[in-house]
């Protein structure tokens, strides 16, 4: 499969714009990136792009939501599905920061964790 994409690097504020190509043998070639970190970012963007997910879940009996974050980046094409799944989750207070809210989401090997503490009752 041949794939070509223009990519704006986000590794540093310079924001290099380059092109990444994947040929039929699976070789990746690039143009326009000026550092090693940029090159590896560009390759990953073409072959297996990943993103962090941040969203919220409900707290039983609470009037505020609990913000959550993935403990590692997720495949980009699973982000919406993961966010959708988390809309159905409700947790009980108290919650500790870092507590696992949804282990191994969609079997992707990534945990969704609480990004803050919620105290009991009054919380």
């Amino acid at each position, binding site marked *: 499969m041949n794939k070509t994409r223009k990519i704006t690097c986000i590794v540093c504020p310079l924001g290099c714009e380059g092109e990444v190509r994947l040929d039929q043998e699976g070789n990746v070639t690039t143009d326009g990136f000026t550092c090693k970190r940029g090159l590896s970012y560009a390759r990953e963007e073409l072959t297996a792009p990943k993103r*962090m997910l*941040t969203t919220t879940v*409900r707290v039983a009996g609470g*009037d505020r*939501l609990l*913000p959550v974050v993935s403990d590692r980046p997720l495949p980009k094409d699973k982000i919406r599905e993961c966010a959708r799944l988390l809309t159905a989750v409700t947790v009980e207070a108290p919650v500790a920061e870092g507590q696992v809210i949804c282990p191994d989401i969609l079997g992707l090997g990534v945990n969704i964790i609480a990004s*803050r503490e919620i105290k009991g009752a009054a919380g």
Partner: protein
Amino acid sequence: MFEAEYDVVIVGGGPAGMAAAVGAAQNGAERIALIERDDELGGILQQCIHNGFGLHRFGEELTGPQYAGRFIRQVAEYPNIEVFLDTTVLEVTPEKQVYTVNPQRGIGRFQAKAVVLAMGCRERSRGAIAIPGHRPAGVFTAGTAQRMVNREGYLPGKRVVILGSGDIGLIMARRLTLEGAEVAAVLEIMPYSNGLTRNIVQCLEDFDIPLYLSHTVTAVKGAARVTEVTCAAVDEELKPIPGTEFAIACDCLLLSVGLIPENELSRSLGIEFDRRTGGPVVDQTRQTSAAGFFAAGNVLHVHDLVDWVSAESETAGRSAARYARGLRAAAGRLVRVEAGSGVRVVVPQRIDCAAAGEYIELYCRVASPERNLTLALTAGGRTLFAQRLPLAKPSEMATLKVPKDCLGENPPEAITLVVKHADRGEEI
């Protein structure tokens, strides 16, 4: 009436106030009051649930609540920092009395030896940018929408147009999309985005949300609720070009059109203000033109990274503690720092030579995006100090570490920061 005396009173318990409190505690202030009107510390960070905070400060990417959590725990480590929640400051007097109101204690009066102003900033509103048209429901600032979605659990609309490509607007485009709303377009009046490249890529391109540069909203339509906005391209003077109008159907318009330092309380102090930043004029210790009053964070100038808010506020807290303890030297020669050609703002606006350490850090914003530039500090046509940068954008604050020695034995009255281009033959 509740009355108490403190070495340092800090107005505002967001990232600036928390760091100022820690800075004051670490530098020998004995009694510190941290006053916050919300029911918890953390300020705006608590609704900024996305990640990307703390890369400079902690060497890792945290979410807003995680970043706030680190400082909340740090504040709790110091028994001499007293936190007053649900407490609104009504007035700060030139005699350093801070009047407050709280549902339990009623009216309070805090007598301070030093005051740190850390009230943050507010969003520019529809009125502030004068968008014509009807006045229906469904028009919000991006930060208000962020609070609704991330803390209270409501969607501000189902089909949304966002005016302004500042970071809050971009972040909300992704957030609303993930929550099931449709973001029809983001419009930016400037020919470039005011947001971080990372946010353009991950918040718009990832979700195929169109960004219209050099476009604005010229009218809002709808009786009870927004039904449509009229958009148009703008010319070089940012005026809408007749004939380019088109309509986008939507039930919600979000405004991400800039932030203004919140200085309602500081106005009554009679201190000097900088028209460009919208905040007080300060020296490198973050002391305002009134001795013993300090300012830090977004109340002083709008930052793009919280990491620099924390660093600046620790400086202000440290300076306030020194002032309260009577350790601050009498003011030395004051050198004015001015924003010259190509520079929009520079902070601090004064250097107090008596209080200066080996280096003075200048925070600045350029007036337009530039590559291969030199930031030069000049006085009377002479360059005192210069630093090359590969890139600078108005949306990303640049920092300049200036050795005090470059001011010389007999410092000039004023120095000017300018942008120069070596490759355009400009002398540096």
